[in-house]
């Protein structure tokens, strides 16, 4: 079976801040990492390959530095990595990003038919969770989002558990299909030393906007229907009120609970079992 993993290199988003003076992103010195959800997508692809045989191809769209992420990904046991990199791809929104990645998958599919595409639930920078479903739709593959368990894979079906607000859903889809995955899906492995050494010298295949029949009107800033009009820092969270609970804990507790109700923080009734949506 042929598994394709969509993997994005992202800035460690917990360290990205807004410059309060210029209202621009401060990315300098922020380390880049493999999008955490995508690491689990890769892990699952490798596990499935180990189980049913086949190969794992990684597709990444990003700047040339993303090679680093691809080498790291190769060290876990992938077979092939493709980097889509071109200035013309820059500024793509999720619709355009899905278009570009889909074109690459279709190209791969011509010579090496794809059975399953795996993507992360969302990227921790853009946070839209729209790219995976966009790719599935363009490929005409059924999509299974929020996957936390793959229970069965046959030559023409896959069965998974999906994580929803109020529980988990068991769904079966025809192959080829696309999954977007949650972190609970699996535990990440460590790369073996020989794999790491091989990967260090690995050169990903490069695809640019001229490599095959891309429609330039569907990519980059111009091909993106959404545009970021402005960015700004969220209102800073300042510490609230501190109450002294050392002398009269009961009195202070009563005072706090009173405030919670005054602030109208809607409480879930115990029988709603936390799934009040």
């Amino acid at each position, binding site marked *: 079976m042929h598994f394709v993993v969509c993997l994005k290199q992202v800035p460690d988003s917990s360290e990205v801040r807004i410059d309060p003076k210029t209202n621009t992103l401060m990315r300098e010195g922020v380390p880049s990492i493999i999008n955490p959800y995508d690491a689990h997508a890769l892990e699952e692809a490798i596990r499935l390959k180990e189980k049913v045989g086949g190969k794992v191809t990684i597709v990444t769209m990003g700047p040339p530095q993303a090679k680093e992420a691809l080498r790291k990904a190769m060290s876990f046991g992938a077979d092939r990595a493709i980097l889509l990199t071109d200035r013309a791809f820059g500024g793509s929104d999720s619709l355009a990003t899905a278009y570009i990645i889909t074109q690459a998958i279709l190209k791969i599919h011509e010579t090496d038919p794809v059975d399953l595409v795996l993507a992360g639930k969302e990227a921790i920078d853009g946070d839209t969770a729209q790219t995976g479903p966009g790719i599935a739709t363009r490929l005409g593959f059924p999509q299974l989002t929020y996957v936390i368990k793959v229970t069965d894979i046959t030559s023409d079906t896959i069965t998974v558990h999906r994580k929803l607000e109020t529980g988990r859903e068991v769904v079966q889809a025809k192959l080829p299909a696309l999954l977007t995955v949650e972190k609970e899906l699996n535990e990440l492995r460590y790369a073996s030393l020989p794999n790491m050494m091989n990967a260090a010298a690995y050169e990903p295949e490069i695809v640019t906007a001229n490599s095959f029949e891309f429609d330039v009107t569907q990519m980059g800033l111009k091909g993106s229907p959404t545009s970021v009009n402005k960015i700004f820092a969220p209102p800073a969270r300042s510490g609230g009120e501190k109450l002294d609970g050392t002398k009269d804990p*009961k009195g202070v507790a009563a005072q706090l609970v009173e405030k919670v109700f005054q602030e109208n923080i809607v409480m879930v009734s115990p029988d709603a079992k936390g799934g009040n949506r």
Partner: protein
Amino acid sequence: KKSTPVAGGDVWSGVWVVIEYNRGEIAPVSWELLGEGRKLADDIGCELAGVLVGHDVEAVIPEAFAYGAEKVYVVDDPVLKDYRSQPYAHAITDLIRQYQPEIILMGATAMGRDVFPVVATMMQTGLTADCTVLRIDEATKHLLQTRPAFGGNIMATILCKTRRPQMATVRPRVMAMPERVEGRSGEIIREELGLTEEEVLTKVVDFIKGDAKSIFLDKAEVLVAVGLGIGSKKNLVFAEELADVLGATIAGTRGAVEAGWITHDRQVGQTGITVRPKLYIAIGISGAIQHLVGMETSDFIIAVNNDPDASIFRVANYGIVGDFNEVVPALTAEFKKRLQHGVAK
């Protein structure tokens, strides 16, 4: 029937809200969005409609009118009984092509974030994810869509200027719930699905309902989180009693996970799960940055810690400086008293 999704002209008109109805339950965010949609429709000067896709949805139609829809578009078909991306997207896209709304909104729920990207791709239009503020630009009448990104570290305002409809998913519990006015009515427009079961590529085999104890952390509305400050596993019972009263889910720090008091799927933070509950109660948690990044966008934070200088107080709306042994049982008793009197409902 296929219209090209270009902006401008007066063909694209109206604000639509997709009402989320599955397994006999309506997601409340659907009504929140009818409330918000009303304001947007008034600012543009257009009508507000609800979209109802599913099976056996008849009883929901009057509710949509009660919450402010002037029109309801209905696609009711047995194929739509269980939610599945493909037939739902098919139904919504067909309605859009035929009736051409200017704006279409849905909750940023598991369902909304699954189906809307499919619809946007089929329509070749823009979609803004997980919005928290929506406004109409006075001059251009474009929809200004504001959303958090980078894990809540930044806010961005997104526009979709040249294509229609303008699409957004909106975070639940951010917009106010509108007043429900019984007896309102409006026009009902029914359309066929035009898709058979044989054409659908997925099948829902089973659904396993979660309870408060097993609910996934990032979906929980109330979390009671513990840190190393509770001292031992047996003291977890203090947190559990509070959680029971609040219908909350237990979570904790990496420290608590490493001590073996809670499992890793309960860990909040950089190497755990990012959560955004309505209420986060932190007990014996110092507030290390790796923990804060996973919970600081919670709507409301209460912290209990015996160190007045603990970092957790910097993000807490209310902090109680004290020993959890005394403070937590007192909180539990107090919440119990108030909730039993029904004040919270």
